């Protein structure tokens, strides 16, 4: 599955960068995250209980951040598995300064296998859409909060 | 988890009481608890239609219900139609038109078509076709089943039994 999109954040590149590199923020981006620990500077390990309507399932996996060029670019490589299946993927995130703040461009490719892939094909793309949209909402809120805190 | 529940179900006019796990599918209950194995299971996903039964008179997929939900309700299965010696007109029609080959999907077709024929008279060609659309058959290509439905409609409207 290809994932591609963009989102404008109401903040500077540095602010957005700092936020997306904060494991605590990332943990809130995906609801259901039960564990997220930093293994090394660029490597995270986590567990999530994903829930999409009636469908739920625990996944555990790891994410490695590569090619980091703060505050504008990084590459994410992730893989994991759980009862409903397994996934493997990589993608890039670019932050670009725009008038309204910071434009995040993301694109990547995720391969999903197992039960979810074999019987839930039609769910996968649309679910990722929903998850990304909800995640961006969370990030927007987190960014506002961080800016407010910084202003205090 | 061994939570069990007691249910009372009327199947083909007979009252059955059983103690079951709530997760037991109605299809498995009918087949393996009541030993009414004429109802078949083909996909357990509600697509193939082989497990169709009548639940309070309506055709439903028995793989998409839990047995516990049948508590206090009435079920009819293929065993409630005719016997080998005395077939129901719908079964007769299937026989005459060679509307079955391996016979695995057949009871699902019968139980899907039965209420349509019982509840309506003067069905259009379209109505008859639509009555088949929820059931898969790999053997017949459906043509003889369509013929059977047409023949059964004739038999049943011209005063055959029930």
């Amino acid at each position: 599955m290809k994932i591609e999109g963009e989102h404008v954040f109401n903040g500077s590149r540095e602010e957005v960068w700092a936020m997306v590199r904060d494991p605590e923020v990332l943990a809130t981006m995906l609801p259901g995250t039960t564990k997220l620990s930093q293994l090394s500077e660029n490597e995270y390990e986590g567990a999530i209980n994903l829930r999409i309507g009636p469908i739920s399932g625990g996944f555990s996996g790891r994410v490695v951040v590569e090619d980091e060029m703060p505050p504008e670019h990084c590459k994410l490589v992730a893989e994991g598995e759980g009862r409903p299946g397994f996934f493997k993927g990589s993608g890039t995130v670019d932050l670009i300064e725009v008038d309204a703040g910071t434009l995040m461009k993301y694109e990547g490719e995720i391969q999903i296998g197992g039960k979810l892939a074999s019987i839930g094909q039609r769910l996968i793309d649309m679910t990722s859409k929903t998850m990304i949209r909800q995640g961006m909402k969370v990030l927007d809120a987190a960014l506002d909060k961080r800016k407010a805190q910084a202003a205090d | 988890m061994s939570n069990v529940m007691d249910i009372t179900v009327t199947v083909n006019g007979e009252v059955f009481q059983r103690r079951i796990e709530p997760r037991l599918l109605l299809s498995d209950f009918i087949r393996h608890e009541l030993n009414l194995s004429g109802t078949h299971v083909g996909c357990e996903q509600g697509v193939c239609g082989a497990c169709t039964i009548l639940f309070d008179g309506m055709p439903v997929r028995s793989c998409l219900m839990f047995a516990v939900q049948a508590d206090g309700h009435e079920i009819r299965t293929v065993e409630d139609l005719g016997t080998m010696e005395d077939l129901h007109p719908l079964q007769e029609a299937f026989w005459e038109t060679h509307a079955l080959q391996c016979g695995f999907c057949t009871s699902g077709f019968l139980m899907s078509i039965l209420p349509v024929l019982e509840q309506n008279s003067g069905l259009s060609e379209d109505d008859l076709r639509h009555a088949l659309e929820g059931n898969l058959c790999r053997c017949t290509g459906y043509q003889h089943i369509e013929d059977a439905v047409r023949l059964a409609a004739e038999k049943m409207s011209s005063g055959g039994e029930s």
Partner: protein
Amino acid sequence: MTAKLIGKRIKRNEDPRLLTGQALFVDDVELPGMLHAAFLRSEYAHARLKGVDVSAALERPGVVAAFTAEDMGDAWSPGPPLVIPPPTIEEVEFYTRTQVPLVKDKVRHAGEPLAIVIAESRYIAEDALDDIVVDLEPLDVVTDIERALDSDSPLVHDDLEPNLAAHLVQEKGDYAAAREEADTVIKRRITIERGIAGAMENRGIVASWDNKQQQLTVWDTTQSPIPIRNGLASMFGLSEHQVRVIAPFVGGGFGPKIMMFYPEEVLLTWSTLKMGKPIKWIEDRRENFYATTQERGQVHDVELALTSDGRILGLRDDFLHDTGAYDPYGLTIPLNTQCHALGPYDIPNFSSDLKVVFTNKTLTTPVRGAGRPQGVYVIERMLDIAAKELGIDRVEIRKRNFLPNDVFPYDNIIIDQAFASFVIDSGDYLPAMEKALEMIGYEKFTKEEQPKLREEGRRVGIGVVSFIETTGVGPYEGARVTIESSGKISAATGVGTQGQSHFTTFAQIIAEQLGVDVRDVHLVTGDTAQFHWGTGTFASRGAVVAANAVNAAASIVRGKVLKLASEVLETPEEELEIEDGVVRVADIPTRSITLGDLAQRSNPLRGAVEPGTEPGLEATAYFGPNYGATAFGTHAMIVEVDPETMMVEIKRYIVVEDCGTVLNPLIVEGQIHGGVAHGIGNSFYEKLVFDDNGQLLNASFMDYLIPTAAEVPRIEVAHQETPSPLNPLGSKGVGEAGAIPVPALFAQAVENALGVDGLEILESPLSPQRLFELFYEEEKDA
């Protein structure tokens, strides 16, 4: 005279049982103390297995046992090859790699079993699958057959580089020379994708070892109970008489239920022998999608060499055949493809280089058609293209190339699936085509209707395709026919039944021979306790091989009846007739004796036995043809494509079928309808989609689209009868026939309907999505 029953529309003996839910299918078998099995299967298509830990599963209440490959000890071994490569072809390369009961070292396709759990219920067994801890190291995957042959491709079998399962070249005449002579050489690449068999009943097994009786009973959804019995006996060191395999009513076969041995057949048997308890396993639909065999994936590079007036000088068909992770079924499918690429045509020069390739996908074995649809697709598409390029009518080019009637038996020189020279026993192609053209109104449609509809902007098209089908291959089948003292007949044969109506057609043959009512013939099929010898139901052979064995046995019994009656009635045999269960003297109908009385007399009491007496009006006979009987026919269809949505409607469908002697037209028509529906699926709806990781992306009836009543049109069937000279009944098989020409026909008709210059369909199956791409690409270019 005995009533003529062969050829009559007789309704089926088996139906009352099936219609009332009283027929026994494997999942209906309930035994006291029966346990239930579930399999843990690999979700990865290619992975190193580093460990399976079932200890947590064993602790779950209700779980009785859980086994891995290690637990099997010496009993673990790869399955036997079913079909060996043809020994008669020189220089054939073939590497046997057969499926294993449980994965020991490496997973080679998604769905391979890693462990079996046996529990008090299937529900608990499935709960316990989640308890098993598996350590799999995913490996790079190869799914594409061309890629699999690259030197740097991942290897399905580590010792086989580069994933080549077989290689063979077949030649007839001198293709290279024919190519030199040709006015036109047309070259195309054709791709055909995989589909499933899609029997409504999934596979299932109940295995029960009775320690006191030292008897193993296995109920199995197999199409081949006798080979399963023989195999299990030899695998587990039992006498064949200690093993009874029963294939009861089976809910559709279509090929994959032949594929012995499946891992589950071995595992269930091994487990019941170990545990002494009956165990049931019923495949679920998801398992059916990746653990039951599939078919059709091939890529062809084809050349057709012709004269300018459309005569075929030669055909070259080099192709790759996808066998999946293992190749137990040898070369049956691609040999069928090669043979059927020759079609009903006079093709003097032929060359075919075949490579069979391993991939990290479920294995392929015959599915209704078994390589034939691909061969038909190749030649028929090439003829369509040739017709266009040479400006000859599609029908005309076929007529010009049909084998004439005086050439049969016609030797095509190349080797067929029976490892013999591919000889066509009989044929009469032109009338079948003429009949189809007349029925569909080809002239009127193409000259009047189509141009008119075209002007209205409607995209309607017509297709006409002829085909041959090799059927009824050996080695042999047998049957036993007995007249019981009740006067009724019992009969047994080794083939199983999956809906082919054996209980009726075989009964018709017997009833005609013995002058009884068809309903008074009680037939047992598929129970090894009832008949000891045979192979199984496949390759459209029941109505040929088994039916002729039945006929032979019944005719011997008839002889015995007449002989005995002649003694009793003191009348020469020639003056006797059998009718309504009674043997009469033709001129004096009151002088008669019932078959029942004769049967009683045939079982002599003490003192009445003369030397050499064989008791009973009973006979066992076998039939084994020299080679297969070749059926043929023409299909035609009219379609309309909605040029906006690319949805296709089949408006008419015509079949002219020649399967030799028609035993029962009602049943033959049923077989054809079902085949055509399957073919429509293969043409437009059914395509297994694997991703690059070997994951099957449409493993459910939700996403894999089997046609429903709404997608299958009325099918108008006409019969032509050219009896096979190879068997006394003159019959040819018909079980697969309907499916074989449909993809080629559909492609032709849709291409014709779209009517866009340059738009060529060279793949199967199609889809609205694919038509959209083809149509709008060409429209854009145009």
